[in-house]
């Protein structure tokens, strides 16, 4: 029995018939003599039988299509893994790309604006340009078509506007009278009749006039000076002005052209005359006039002001007679409220007065090459200069862009690093999961 261990090592092969004939005989002899080893053989046989009895499992129906599908996908593109990755994450990739572009653009933009493509070099820090000018003109042009037509009529304008003023005065008179009746109701005692009459004479019609002019001129500075003269002559003033060199409007000879905007305030009576004069300083490309009649609002407010003033006086009167502290306080409170209101009305009326007294004219001046005035022969003399200038300009622009791109990469680098790390983590995760399950 001493060779039981030796035999046991051979039992497995003995069962499978994998032993050499001599060895098998030895094992057989041993088994006959050794019941323990015989038992062992039986156990192993049973175990093998158990294993062999395990049925073949039917694979799920989707397995074959799934395999074939993945193989077809593989067959379609050699670098499938990458394209699958891209395909699955198309949205993510798109978002990442947009982000990258934005980040790079953030770096690139300033260079573009300052150096190369920038439309203009602003002489002062001002944002008005042609694109802003257009919609404004359009808007006004539409809303005040009538006024424009009237104003555009070259002759008889004086007559027509005069006639209108006649009518206006009549109308105003009527309104004033109505207004006085109102005063009579509320402020009769306080207001001597003569004073009201005086007001009526002053009033006239309260019309706020505005105009916009767009001019194309041959010489900006000259035109600007001419406008200044008009303003001086009419007794108005220049509210604001600015000028800048237009980059989008470069002449053939490389000359810089100016553009500008002047806001004029002209005394109401001189409005049309000033407009007419300025209009003839150049070629008018757009003109719009619009008047805002605030007569009624003005009168209403005046009436309210009067009534408040009366109220104020009355309160003062009561205040002087009041004895109790409590009453005094209450009256003063009320007085305070009334005075605030009065101030509000006065300030609004002053604003209106100002606007009526001085009409506003916005003039947009644009310097252009007088193409229709003279035939300009091609200037060969400075051709080389212009070529050189252009070359330098473009080269500088390209250098700016290259520089900005490098800066842009700097901007993008953190994003790229994070995205790369994220991808690696994701890939590692996927590999781990690849077999584990779907």
């Amino acid at each position, binding site marked *: 029995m001493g060779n039981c261990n030796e035999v*046991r*090592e*051979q*039992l*497995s*092969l003995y069962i*499978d018939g*994998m032993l050499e004939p001599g060895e098998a005989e030895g094992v057989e002899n041993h088994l006959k003599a050794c019941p323990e080893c015989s038992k062992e053989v039986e*156990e*192993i046989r049973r*175990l*093998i039988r*158990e*294993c*062999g*009895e*395990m049925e*073949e*499992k*039917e*694979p*799920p129906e989707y*397995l*074959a299509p*799934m*395999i*074939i599908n*993945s*193989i*077809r996908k*593989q*067959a379609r593109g050699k670098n499938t893994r990458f394209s699958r990755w891209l395909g699955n994450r198309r949205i993510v990739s798109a978002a990442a790309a947009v982000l990258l572009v934005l980040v790079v653009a953030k770096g690139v933009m300033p260079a573009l604006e300052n150096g190369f493509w920038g439309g203009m070099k602003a002489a002062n820090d001002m944002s008005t340009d042609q694109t802003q000018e257009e919609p404004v003109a359009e808007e006004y042009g539409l809303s005040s078509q009538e006024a424009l037509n009237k104003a555009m009529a070259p002759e008889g304008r004086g007559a027509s506007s005069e006639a209108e003023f006649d009518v206006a005065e009549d109308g105003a008179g009527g309104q004033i009278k109505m207004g006085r009746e109102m005063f009579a109701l509320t402020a009769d005692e306080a207001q001597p009749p003569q004073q009201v009459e005086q007001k009526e004479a002053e009033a006239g019609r309260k019309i706020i006039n505005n105009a916009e002019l767009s001019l194309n001129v041959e010489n900006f500075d000259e035109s600007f000076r001419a406008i200044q003269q008009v303003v001086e002559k009419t007794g108005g003033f220049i509210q604001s002005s600015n000028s800048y060199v237009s980059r989008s409007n470069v002449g053939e000879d490389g000359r810089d052209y100016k553009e500008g905007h002047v806001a004029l305030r002209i005394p109401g009576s001189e409005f049309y005359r000033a407009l007419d004069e300025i209009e003839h300083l150049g070629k008018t490309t757009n003109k719009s006039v619009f008047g805002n009649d605030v007569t009624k609002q003005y009168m209403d407010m005046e009436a309210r002001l009067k009534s408040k003033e009366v109220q104020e006086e009355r309160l003062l009167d009561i205040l002087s007679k009041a004895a109790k502290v409590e009453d005094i306080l209450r009256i003063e409170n009320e007085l305070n409220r009334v005075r605030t209101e009065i101030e509000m009305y006065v300030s609004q009326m002053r604003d209106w007065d100002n606007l009526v007294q001085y009409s506003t004219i916005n003039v947009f001046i644009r310097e252009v090459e007088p193409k229709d005035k003279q035939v300009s022969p091609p200037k060969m003399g400075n051709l080389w200069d212009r070529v050189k200038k252009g070359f330098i300009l473009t080269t500088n622009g390209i250098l700016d862009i290259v520089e900005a791109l490098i800066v842009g990469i700097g901007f993008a680098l953190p994003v790229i690093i994070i995205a790369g790390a994220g991808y690696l983590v994701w890939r590692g995760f996927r590999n*781990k999961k*690849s*077999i*584990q*399950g*779907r």
Partner: protein
Amino acid sequence: MAAELRLVERSKEGDLQAFEELVLMYQKQIYNLGYRMMGNEEDACDIAQEAFLRAYKSIGKFNLKSRFGTWIYRIAMNLCIDELRKRKKTKLYPIVHNDNPEDKQYKLVSDAGDLPEELVEKKETRLKVQQAINRLPEDHRTMIVLRDIQGRSYQEIADIMGLNLGTVKSRISRARYNLKEEIEKQTGTERRELRLKC
């Protein structure tokens, strides 16, 4: 065999349809191999899919002298072993055996010829065996699956695993003893548990 060889040859030339036929021929075997090795259906599917995909990618390198069946077996087997090792190392994904079909089949075939008690007993031992197999180390599990469950010859196993015959012999022998021990261990704990309950 000749038909299979032709299919393989066509596949090597890039005939997708031929390869798909090979897939249909072998998917069941590979699936079962995966199932016995990994212990559950999902992993079995994944193993099968990945094995055929890899086979397709490297069909050009396939040597026509060997059999396609052996080759695809080898690919699948390596995948299983890699995966098992990876899981053992990371301990992240313990293998779940609770979907063992031997449990489910019981109800379906209980009205067949066998007596119920016998059948239950049979199912129980079979489940026990499968669980014990799942606890074996990969190299032993491989041997039991190939030799005792799928009934491959020693030579085939040697070819699939790329081992020499002697190694296969000793490994099968050791694997069987190991399995026997596992089952005994299991029965022992079960008995102990039973005693504790009583």
